[in-house]
């Protein structure tokens, strides 16, 4: 098949057809997967102290990029678009301003950006990226939880079999793994603070699970 490195922009141009700005005007309120859990009121009325703190970062832009880590042109294009290079080390991540990129697979990265910038960045990619790649907006399909507190690590140990010891799970490491009976992409943002990217249809289950597993420590909702 054709050499990945010399497919013209025109050849890949056709893929533009399907992209669209999926976010409506601000008069329409988006409902994140945990919308009905109403974290805002829970944060106000609920307990203020406890071993587990939970916050939802909702309505961010989730972009799944799949391309060739050996393709220098593609790597350069990504850096042009995002101002930061793709993390090529397995299970690593990078952050730059409002953008953060997670290694998901040897040819897959999850990029989180502010919700309203999603389409702009998609467009930039479509203009800049050469060769064979795919870019998918998955913003509606998942949400981001931030789990922190003195017992955050212990709680996660109950959900995932990945070793969370700082030596084997340093800040910045990201893993896609099982979370109880669902899945999550877990990234350590500091010693006691983790980011969980979870799927929309499983979010109620995970919310229920976290509440149950937190009973021993006390759960504080932040908003």
């Amino acid at each position, binding site marked *: 098949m054709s050499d990945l490195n010399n497919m013209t922009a025109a050849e890949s141009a056709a893929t533009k057809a399907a992209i669209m700005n999926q976010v409506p005007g601000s008069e329409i309120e988006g409902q994140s997967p945990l919308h009905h859990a109403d974290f805002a009121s829970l944060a106000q009325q609920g307990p203020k102290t406890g071993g587990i703190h939970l916050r939802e970062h909702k309505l961010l832009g989730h972009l799944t990029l799949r391309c060739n880590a050996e393709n220098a042109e593609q790597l350069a294009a990504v850096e042009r678009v995002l101002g930061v290079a793709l993390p090529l080390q397995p299970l690593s991540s990078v952050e730059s301003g409002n953008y953060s990129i997670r290694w998901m697979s040897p040819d897959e990265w999850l990029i989180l950006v502010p919700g309203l910038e999603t389409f702009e960045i998609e467009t930039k990619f479509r203009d800049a990226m050469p060769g064979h790649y795919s870019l998918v907006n998955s913003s509606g399909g998942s949400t981001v939880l931030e789990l922190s507190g003195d017992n955050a690590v212990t709680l996660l140990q*109950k959900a995932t079999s990945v070793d969370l010891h700082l030596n084997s799970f340093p800040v910045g490491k990201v893993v896609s793994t099982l979370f109880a009976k669902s899945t999550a992409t877990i990234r350590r943002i500091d010693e006691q603070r983790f980011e969980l990217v979870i799927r929309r249809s499983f979010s109620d289950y995970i919310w229920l699970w976290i509440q149950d597993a937190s009973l021993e420590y006390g759960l504080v909702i932040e908003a």
Partner: protein
Amino acid sequence: MTQQNRLTSGGRIDRSTPLTFTYNGKQYKGFKGDTLASAMLANGIDVVARSFKYSRPRGIVACGAEEPNAVLQLGATEATQVPNVRATQQELFNGLVSASTNGWPSVDTDVMGMIGKVGGNMMPPGFYYKTFMFPESLWDTYESMIRKAAGIGRAPRERDPDTYDSINQHCDVMIVGAGPAGLAAALTAARGGARVIIADEQNEFGGSLLNGTEKLDGKPASEWVRAVVEELSRYDDVLLLPRSTVNGYHDHNFLTIHERCTDHLADIAPVNQVRQRMHRVRAKWVVLATGAHERPLVYANNDVPGCMVAGAVSTYINRYGVVPGNELVVMTTNDYGYQAALDWADAGRKVVAIVDTREAAVGDRTEAARQRGLNIISGSAVIEVQGTKRVTGVSVAGLSASGTKVIGSVTKLKADTVATSGGWSPVIHLSCHTGSRPVWSDSVVGFLPGATVQKQLTAGGINGQYETAIALQEGFDAGQKALAEVGLAAANVVLPETEAMKVAAPMSLFHIPHLKPTSQAPKQFVDYQTDVTAAGIEIACREGFEAIEHVKRYTAMGFGTDQGKLGNINGMAVAAKALNKSIPETGTTVFRPNYTPIAFGAIIGRNCGALFEPERYTAMHKWHVQQGALFEDVGQWKRPWYFPQAGETMQQTLNRECLAVRNSVGILDASTLGKIDIQGKDAREFLGRVYSNAWAKLAVGKCRYGLMCGEDGMVFDDGVTACLGENHFVMTTTTGGAAHVYEWLEIYHQTEWPELEVYFNTVTDHWSTATITGPNSRKLLAELTDADVTNDDFRYMDWKQITVAGVPARVFRISFTGELSFEINVQANYGMHVWEKLIEAGAKYGLTPYGTETMHILRAEKGFIIAGQDTDGSVHPYDLGMGWCVSNQKPFSYIGKRGMNRSDCTRENRKQLVGLKTKDPKQVIPEGSAAVLDPKGPKPLEIQGHISSSYWSETLGHSIAMGFIKGGLDKMGETVYYPMADGTVIEAEICSPIFFDPKGERQNV
């Protein structure tokens, strides 16, 4: 009753904290630090159970996991009942309620006991294989009698009020057992900087060091223990788990630890706490420091309450300040047995005699006994015990040097307690769990851990090393080895000074002979809980059950809740003797998880009730709930099944929903359908290979239906795929098939066709899909969009990118109902908004939400299949009459092509999907019904096929069905019969499965 057997001082109990407990309805007192067993002994309770076969009175014989008799029912309330709790492992708490399990009217006076005495002789091993056969019809009665008699405790009748937890752990070194060897290993590994987990089943660390009177560095051993534990708890990377039993050792150094968090506090966990926790450990290295279990000797009436193992007697005295009797006779084959007598004497009670089966053994312990002037009878044995509910005396006689024959006269001694030691059995259970077979050691007189592929080390008693000095050293060595293996530097540890003890050689003796042959002597028990006797084992061997596995299974030896921890080796010895073999020649004994029993609740942790399995919801779920929808489980999804209104029967609801769609417009939440985004210039080629039909010419903006087959040619999924861009498609799959289809695409791409430039991404959750369908669906859509949705501009099987209710959407004009339909896809964050706007605007058209059931009826009226309902893995596209969906012009031999051309797939008379119209239009053939040509023929009748889909069609005013008939496609108009359970027969005519709008005009308007 006061605690008449409690010493005024000594032991590790807290006399300042008295506790009250109940046993068989009677209240007793004990102390904090007691086990239920030690408290019972302190109160002079002799009989704790009735044996399961002979109903003989049984007492406490041991002090730990090996206890076979003291197995009680626990629980103050119905919901907190726990069956089969081993009293020797249950810590005493205030208000503990316990009861013995067998025996009627009571464990002390049991009528079964009489039956046991009389009928006992008619119950040799395996007797049940030899009887209860005549008459055949009576077996059910016999069986229910057997079942009532069997079983120990009972399950609660109410739900468990407690919660359980499971947690994943990782470490460099997992140390099992916190006796001298384990603690030395832990200290070494911890100082060396390793991540360590050390677990012990008891309430505090120290193991044997807490049971004796031994000194370390000249101080009581417990002080060294305290210091070590204190240091270990200072390390961040060391996890100390008391009250935690390592129950299973699985492949690749995976271990399960069962931690009892609150069982020592109450029989229900304090609020917000978990009762028990399973630790799922992945260890780089494992150190087994599990110690050894003392073996009782096998002698006549050795099950009378008051017969105990020697070490247990010492433990009750030294650790719990309880002397379980007044007059002790010790029988031992080794030096350690003497310790019980020394401790007993120290406690100020009478040692009647130490009966040593050896001639003139001289070791430090034997000499200590001599200096104390204790009565030592050498070269002899206790050949029989007197008493029924408590030992009253023993018969002692001389033994031949080999220990096989009684010689000389019999002396009777008065005593109420017999402590025996037949040596020690290393606790090798865990090492067996991973499939390693133990090896017999003549010097140890026991089995040792066998070769293993696990990263496993052993130290102390498990190696047959019972002297503290050696145990400490082996623990230290194991710790250093583990450090080296995980790449850490050796640690600096100075082991404590021990009192070196000279030990005389033990005698290898298990079964004490009697004056009479074993078959005629009073019962000599090998396995107490299963009532297996030495005579029983001899019978099994005589009958030809010669492999030890046969002996165990035929006699049930080792099948109790203690899994033969006390009895197995003795049993093998008896069998070996009967077969004139050595013990290893009879085979080995292999242990399996669990080491000790674990509550189901602990094993499943939180994965029960609401968390048993995830419920997946769409963005509109909350709306459906508010509308009172009933839900159908499809995979993990909760899909609206139908939306009943007040007073409606299900059928009335379905009729209303169906008519609404056919006459005006209905709305369906189709978000659960699998969606896979496909990009790359070879996407089209790839589709052509995984679908049975052609994709080369599908234009941008168009949709197409496809069938997916396996390499065997059988259909396993279907769906519509839209061409979004020249190199960009979105595929839909069945709700249940999404994950499988995605993996299907990936496996072929990654392993077979990596050269194809294509990427797949699951976008199921990203899009919310509201399907509006019915003659008024276009009007409704038009109200919410500025885009031109007229038939000229937006054709059937087109898709468009337009704005609906202010939200950018991809709208697909495809139809699963045969009506004019639009599937509106928006980013799920806006799904609810669009849905609510549609409902609002749809009101004037009587927009009707409908669920999966109505969807199924509507599609069946059109003869559309549902993969998984109208397919079962044994039908290919032609069987479904869907040859139109197969393209054999494609250059590439797509998946399924070759499969569906195998001889059996092309033969005549295959089952084919057809429509079925009942002669009586009102009759609905039950789904699953089987067709025959002649219902009156003799059974077995040849089945022509089954009904896969069947409904009442309100639209058509008659029932409709789809089903399979052998050669059905060539049998249009013929009649088949469906015999029902009640003997009636439903007659139906084979017809086309398309019952409604056969020309397909309605979806094209």
